[in-house]
Each structure stands twice: as structure tokens, then as C-alpha cells.
């Protein structure tokens, strides 16, 4: 099982951790924050968009240094997510989604999104 998971990380995959982030008081009054980590093993993707959503997957306002991250293949990035106290109650998911570049080829593409759940 461990070998299987280890091997899977070498392909074109996308990881977003932790699975269950917790919001903590940030250095800004009235704002919670949490740190997420993104690992990009997709050879065909260099950009990921971060989003915060409620239980119905409606967007919840948040702040981050970058909302679209450029991450090279096999790159790893940490990002701090800031959510106002008044929005934190309805924030349920923090997601990362691959952004696909427009290319001139007759193919389907696979967009991956992984959502962590705030505990």
C-alpha cells in the first residue's frame, strides 16, 4: 500500500494538504488564518487556483498572497489563507484547482480539484 502511494506520487498528480485544516487567530485582528500546502506532480499543469467555499460550494471571501499559484512540476508551495471571522462560520472547504492552458490540440483535458474540509 505504501509502495503504491509512493509510486503514485511520481506521476501526474496533485496533492493538497492538510485534509482537515483548522483556523487559528492570525496577526490581523478579526481574521483567522490557516496554512495549506500544494504539491504539483502534474507535468501538464503549472498553475493552480485556490478557493474557499461554503457547504454548497458557493465562494466565500478570503485573502491570500496569491490566489493563482504558479508551481513547476514537482514543486511544493505553502500558502496562508486568511478568512474574516464573520465569514469563517460558513467557510467549509478550502480547495485547489488546476488551471489548464489553452492549447491547440484535439484532446480532452482533465482538471483536478482537491478540497480540504475546515474542522
Amino acid at each position, binding site marked *: *500500500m505504501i509502495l*503504491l*502511494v509512493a509510486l*503514485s*506520487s511520481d*506521476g*501526474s*498528480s*496533485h*496533492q*493538497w*494538504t*492538510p*485534509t*482537515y485544516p483548522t483556523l487559528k487567530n492570525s496577526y490581523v485582528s478579526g481574521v483567522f488564518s490557516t496554512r495549506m500546502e500544494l504539491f504539483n506532480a*502534474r507535468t*501538464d499543469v503549472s498553475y493552480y487556483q485556490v478557493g474557499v467555499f461554503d457547504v454548497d460550494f458557493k465562494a466565500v471571501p478570503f485573502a491570500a498572497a496569491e490566489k493563482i499559484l504558479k508551481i513547476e512540476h514537482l514543486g511544493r508551495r505553502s500558502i496562508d489563507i486568511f478568512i474574516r471571522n464573520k465569514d469563517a462560520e460558513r467557510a467549509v*472547504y478550502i480547495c485547489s484547482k488546476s488551471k*489548464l492552458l*489553452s*492549447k*491547440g*490540440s*484535439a*484532446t*480532452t*483535458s*482533465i*482538471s*483536478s*480539484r*482537491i*478540497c*480540504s*474540509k475546515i474542522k
Partner: protein
Amino acid sequence: MFKKIVLASAILCGGVIAQEVPITGSVESKCIVQTDTIGIYGNPTPSSLTTMSTGGGVTPIVRFDVIQASFYKARITTPNGFSESPALSDVVTWTGDVAVGEVSDANMSAYSTSKVVYDNTTEIDLTIAGSTWFNITSTADYGYDTALPAGTYRAVVSAECIAL
């Protein structure tokens, strides 16, 4: 006498000196979305595009790896529009399907019956740890046997892993 006291003290002290060796580890549920095969549309008839091999296409395959069971659900959405195409003046009818392919645990075949399908989206609770390959088919039929205009066609399959 003094030497004996010092020696006894040293022995006693030696007996209680201990090194604490911390062992740390982290266990975390994690989902990995793996793009196994990028699909290609075949053009079996002038009015249709399909990823099915019978139509000359290549089926997109996506793999979900979960380290712990029942912490994630997979949500796969087949296309209902082109992300890139020539100008189309007629209606495109979309059909799609998500099928369980290879599995690392035989019990995962139950995903075929436990999946929930709505609109063009399929949701599967990943209740077994391991890897599951999902074969995704997408077909686009243009108008009523109307020939598709020449050009490049591209569509996007969305594969999501959502913490429960």
C-alpha cells in the same frame, strides 16, 4: 572512605541517567488525483466526436489514491461544452459516463453500484483505501446528423476529491 562515597555516587548517578529518544510521526488522510491518460476525441461520423475506442478515440482515465478510507469522495464531471472549438451554429448533445476501471482492492468494484449520478456529474464515496481508476467517456453529437465544422475541439473533464 571518601573515594568509596564518590564511586558509589557515580554508579548511582550512572544508573539514573537516561536518554529520551523521541519518536515522531504524522498520519494524515490524503487524496491524490492522478491523471493517468489524457483523452482524445475520435471522429467516427461527421456529426460526432467521442472518446470511445470504438469511435477512434482515447478514453481519459483518472486515478484517485486515498491513504485512509472514508475520508474523501470523488466527484467527476464529464464535459457539457467545448473549451475550444470552431464557431458552432447548431446544438451539441452531450453524453458521458464514468466507469470503475482497475482497482487495487477487489471490493472497490462496489463503487460501480454505489455511485450517485446527477446531470453530468458522478459522485463516489471512497470508502476503501487504495487506488481506483475511473474510465471516463464523453460523446458530442452535433445537430441532427449535421457535419461538425473543421477545426480543433477540446473539452475538459473535472476530477475532484472532496474531504468528507
